[in-house]
C-alpha cells in the first residue's frame, strides 16, 4: 500500500464522482423545478453513449461524437418531455415512477431492437489516450484526468448558469413558486422543456464520456441512475451544490472502499476471508453512507424540503 496507489485511487474516485455528478445534476434540477422523479434519466445516458458510438464510427471524430451525444440526448429528452412527461407534473410520484419505468422499457428494448444485444465500442482518440506524469512521478491516464476536468468545468458552468443568468433566475424562481413566475409572464412550459433538455444533455454527455472507458450497451444507464439517486438523496434533492458534494462522496467511498476495506479487514482476519467480506462490504458501502446521512439529516446534506 503505497502513497502512489492512494493518490491514484483518489483520482479514480474523483473521476467516478464527477461523472455521477453529470447524471445527478440533471435529476436534481428536474426534481427541484418540476417536482418530477425521472427513472428514464438512465435511458438518456444510454442514448448519449449510443449516439456517440455511432457518430464516432461514421466520422472518426471524438469531438463530433460528444456533440452528437449531447444533441441526441437533448432532442430525445425534449420530445419525451413534450409527449409524455408534461402530463405527469400534476400527478403523484407513483404515476411518475410507473410512467418513467415504462419509458425505460420502451427505450431499452427499442435500442436492443435497433443495435442488438452486443456492446458497441467507443474508442478513446489517440491524442487523449496514454498516461501523463503528474508531479511526484505518478503516471495517470490522460483521458481520466480530462473527465475530471470536464466534470468540474460543467459544475462551475452550471453554478454560473443558475446564479448569474436570466434562465438561472427563472429556474430558481420555478423551484420556489411556479404559479408566481407563470403569472409574471414566464412561459413555464417552455422553461420546463429547456430544463429537461439541459438535464438530458448532461446525461448524454456523461454516457458518451464513460462509454469510451466502458462498453456501450443496453441497460448501461440503470446502475448509474440508481447511484445518481443515492447521490441526490445524500446531497439533498434540488440542490446542485448537494449533488456535487454527494457525487464526490459517493465516488470516493465506492472506489476507496473497494481497495481499502479488504486491506483493513486483513488486520483482523485471514487473507481470503478478508478479501471476500471486504469486497462484499465495499459493494454496500455507499448505501451504508446514505443510511448514515439520512439518520443524521433526513432531507440530505443541503436539502430544504422533503
Amino acid at each position: 500500500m503505497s502513497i502512489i496507489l492512494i493518490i491514484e485511487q483518489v483520482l479514480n474516485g474523483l473521476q467516478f464522482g464527477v461523472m455521477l455528478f453529470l447524471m445527478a445534476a440533471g435529476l436534481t434540477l428536474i426534481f427541484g423545478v418540476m417536482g418530477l422523479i425521472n427513472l428514464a434519466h438512465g435511458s438518456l445516458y444510454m442514448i448519449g453513449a449510443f449516439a456517440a458510438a455511432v457518430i464516432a464510427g461514421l466520422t472518426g471524430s471524438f469531438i463530433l461524437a460528444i456533440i452528437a451525444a449531447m444533441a441526441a440526448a437533448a432532442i430525445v429528452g425534449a420530445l419525451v418531455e413534450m409527449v409524455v412527461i408534461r402530463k405527469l407534473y400534476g400527478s403523484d410520484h407513483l404515476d411518475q415512477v410507473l410512467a418513467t419505468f415504462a419509458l425505460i422499457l420502451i427505450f431499452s428494448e427499442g435500442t436492443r431492437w435497433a443495435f442488438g444485444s452486443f456492446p458497441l465500442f467507443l474508442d478513446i482518440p489517440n491524442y487523449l489516450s496514454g498516461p501523463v506524469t503528474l508531479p511526484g512521478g505518478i503516471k495517470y491516464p490522460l483521458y481520466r484526468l480530462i473527465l475530471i476536468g470536464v466534470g468540474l468545468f460543467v459544475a462551475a458552468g452550471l453554478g454560473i448558469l443558475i446564479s448569474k443568468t436570466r434562465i438561472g433566475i427563472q429556474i430558481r424562481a420555478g423551484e420556489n413558486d411556479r404559479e408566481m413566475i407563470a403569472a409574471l409572464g414566464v412561459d413555464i412550459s417552455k422553461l420546463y422543456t429547456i430544463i429537461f433538455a439541459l438535464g438530458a444533455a448532461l446525461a448524454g454527455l456523461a454516457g458518451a464520456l464513460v462509454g469510451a472507458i466502458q462498453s456501450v450497451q443496453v441497460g448501461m444507464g440503470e446502475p448509474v441512475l440508481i447511484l445518481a439517486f443515492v447521490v441526490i438523496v445524500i446531497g439533498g434533492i434540488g440542490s446542485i451544490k448537494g449533488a456535487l458534494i454527494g457525487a464526490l462522496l459517493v465516488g470516493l467511498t465506492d472506489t476507496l472502499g473497494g481497495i481499502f476495506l479488504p486491506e483493513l479487514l486483513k488486520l483482523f482476519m485471514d487473507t481470503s476471508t478478508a478479501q471476500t467480506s471486504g469486497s462484499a462490504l465495499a459493494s454496500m458501502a455507499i448505501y451504508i453512507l446514505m443510511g448514515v446521512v439520512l439518520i443524521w439529516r433526513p432531507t440530505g446534506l443541503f436539502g430544504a424540503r422533503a
Partner: protein
Amino acid sequence: MIRESYLNALVLFLLLAVPVWATIIDEPFTITLATRAVIFALAAVGLNIALGLGGLVSLGHAVFFGIGGYAMGILAHHAQTYTPVMSLPFLIEGTKSMPVIWLVAMASSGLAAFAIGTLSLRTTGVYFIMITLAFGQMFYFFTISWPTYGGEDGLSVYVRNEFPGLNTLVPIHFFAICFIILCLVLLLNALIAKSPFGLALNAARQMPKRVQAVGLNPNRLKLLAFVISGVIAGLAGALFADLNRFVSPTMFSWQMSGEIMVFVILGGVGRLCGPVVGAVVFVMLEHFLGGLSEYWHVYLGALLLIVVLFARGGLVGLIVGRVDAHD
C-alpha cells in the same frame, strides 16, 4: 359495469379453472404459467398492503422477495449437501420441508422489512422511493459479491421441497399450495382493510396530521403495514424459488421491484384483486407477446404508459368503473 366483488370471484375462479382444465387435458406448462402468475400475484398483494393501504411507494420490494428466495435456497442447499447451515454457537441443519422454509423466509423478510422500514420511514415522498430502491441495490450487490451461496451464478436446488401429504413434484399439487396461500393472504388483506388497524392506516395515508391529532402514531402504523407487506413478499419469494428450483441475485434486482409494482398498478392500486389481475395479465403478456416478439417489453411499456396516463385505477378500475378505489 359489474360489482368488484363479482369480478374478484370471477378472477379467482378462472385462475383455478385454467390449471384444473390443463391437468385434465395434460398440459403441464400451462399449470406452471398459472403457478407463476399466482406467486407474482402473492408478491403484488403484499406490496399492495404497503402501497394501496399505507401509501408507501416502495421501489425495493424485491429485497423481501429475494430474501424469501434465498431462505429457501440456503436451507435446501444445505439439506441436499448434508452440511449444517451453521454449527456455532448452536447447530442449525438445512431442511427440505416447505412449512419450515416458509417460516424462516417470513421471519427473515419481516426482520429486514422492520429494519429497512424504520430507516426509510424517517423520510417521505421521493426520498422514500429512492431509499427503498437503494436498499434493493444494496442487497443485490451483496448477493453478487458474496461467493458462499453461488454469488452471481445463484444456487440450484435439484428436487422441489416437500409438503406433508402432497407430492409437490406434481404441478397441480404445487399450484394448489400456492393458490390456497394466495386466497388466505387475500382474506387477510380484506380483514386488515376492514380492521381498526386498516382504517387507521388508511387515514394515516390520507391525512397523517389528523391521525396524530387523535393520538395515533402514523409512522408506527405505516411501519407495521410495511412489515406485513414484506413478510408476504418474502413468502412469495420462497414459493417462486421453489417453482424454479433456482435462486439468483436477479430476484433482488431493481427490475424485479419495478415489475412487482407494475402488477399492482396494471391491476389497480388499493383494489383487493387488482394485483392478482395485474400479475395474471403480465404473465399472459409475457407468454403471448414474448412468443411473438423478442422485444415484447416495448409493448409492455406502451401498455403501461397508457394505463398510467389514461386508465387511472388500472384494469380493475376500468372494468368496475369507479375511478376512486378508496371511498
